[in-house]
């Protein structure tokens, strides 16, 4: 089954780390991405822009109301996510433990349905 790791944290935390700590965190991310892709169990992975770029769309009186800012007015925002094929929740937890802990909180949720996406090469976010 496909599982997701949703990464929640403060937009500012990463920027507050020293260069060495940032590097250490990035090494964990790229390391895990390599493990997942080498094993061909890596689904879509994303890092989101700062939550100040967000707009929120909800219905008001039957029309779409667009407001500025993220949906949840909390310090901890959705920063990004992984998806990967795992045999069990236990396996997903073990994978999540390889990510930098302490600078963000990881929520693991099984994916009920997903589509791998159809993108032109130009849309590749890297």
């Amino acid at each position, binding site marked *: 089954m496909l599982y997701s790791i949703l990464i929640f944290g403060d937009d*500012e935390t990463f920027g*507050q*780390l*020293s260069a*060495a*700590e940032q590097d*250490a*965190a990035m090494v964990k991310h790229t390391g895990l991405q390599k493990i997942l892709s080498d094993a061909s169990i890596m689904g879509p992975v994303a890092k989101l*822009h*700062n939550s*100040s*770029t967000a*707009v929120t769309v909800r219905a008001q009186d039957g029309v779409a109301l*667009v*407001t*500025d*800012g993220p949906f949840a*007015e909390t*310090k901890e925002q959705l920063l990004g996510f992984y998806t990967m094929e795992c045999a069990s929740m236990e396996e997903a937890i073990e994978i999540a433990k390889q990510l*930098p*802990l*302490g*600078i963000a909180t990881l929520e693991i949720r099984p994916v009920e349905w997903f589509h791998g996406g159809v993108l032109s090469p130009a849309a590749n976010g890297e």
Partner: protein
Amino acid sequence: MAACCRLRPMESEQTFARYLSAARPRAMAALTRYFRAVDISEDAFQEACVRAIKSWPSKGVPRDPTAWLILVGRNAGVDALRRRERDRTLLEEPAPAPLGDLEAAYAEEIDTSDFRDDVLRLLFMCCHPELSEQDQLALALKIVVGFSVAEIARAFLVKPKAMEQRITRAKRKAASVIAALETPSPAERATRLNAVLTMLYLLFNQGYSSAGGALHIRASFCDEAIRLTRLLLTLFPGQTEVMGLLALCLLHNARRSARQDAAGSLVPLDMQDRTLWDRSQIAEGQVLVEKALRHGRAGAFQVQAAIAAVHCAAASAPQTDWEEIERLYEALEALTPSPVITLNRLVAVSKTRGPAQALKGLQALGAVLDDYLYFHSTAAAFHGELGQWAEARDAYNKALSLGPSDAEISYIHLRLDELEK
């Protein structure tokens, strides 16, 4: 207490310092509301930082470092005031509250609307109209950002002693803003935001325009300006000019490393290696401009950011959408008429309708911009494109007589050499 603390595994002293400086604007705003005086608040925050550095390594960084610092700072400030007052009269105040649940309550308070006015007030204090631009920046850097007097003095090439006196005087002048704690009316809030945004852009430009890398501190002005603008946008998420300013700063900052060559001279936009541009900052800036302009209340920062976004969107200099840039400069002229903006529009006109057309427009500006270096170098470039070598040479020489920086001198000489060929 245990519930709201957790040990983060990657902590280092450097990281603690970053937590402290990240918390500073919010904490200073809250402490200044409480004590209604900047000096006491600065000392109180300083004391809170000292205690944080003692306690965090063993007890862990609190879940909300800012709330912790505000509470500890408040208690420290009250203690200091008590000591000061002891000889005169004993303060009848409840004992300082213990940390713990209070910290969580405080963390919530930090997100309230009162609090955002506190942050705005603290920044607004620094742009008091009686202060010179440089004093405004010095005050903001000292109080809000937390730079030392020595650092600020070095950045502005002033003796520390003189800077100390200027900051003290500036603080005294601006004190009335802090003393009046009323909640601003929407109109007053808008006025304050505008003044603060202008100051933050000035801070950004102080860092951005100092080429040559001689002053490392100035480079950090850009980062601090971006950080404070981000904070304002978190507090005022629907303010389009805050989005515009953040976008503008990010779109300029994205090109920072391409703006200087190995020798430290300025590289003009059309000559920059675009692979050095920071794509992530550009994307964020572009999204913010678009988000702001959706509101249909275009302001000067949004339009300037939109212009920067058009430049950033071009894969190469010749692919720049000059027609869009010309339209945007027209919009900017309508919002904030100024001969310098007209000059910039004419640069776009030279690309869309040719240098002859642009030169015609330039003639009307000669009277007001005769002392402006960029006016003459722009005229020179137009003449050059038209093959009018003598006029081009004259205009470059006029530009050289107006005190250009070293980078500009070498750029102009390069152009003059080309004319000789």
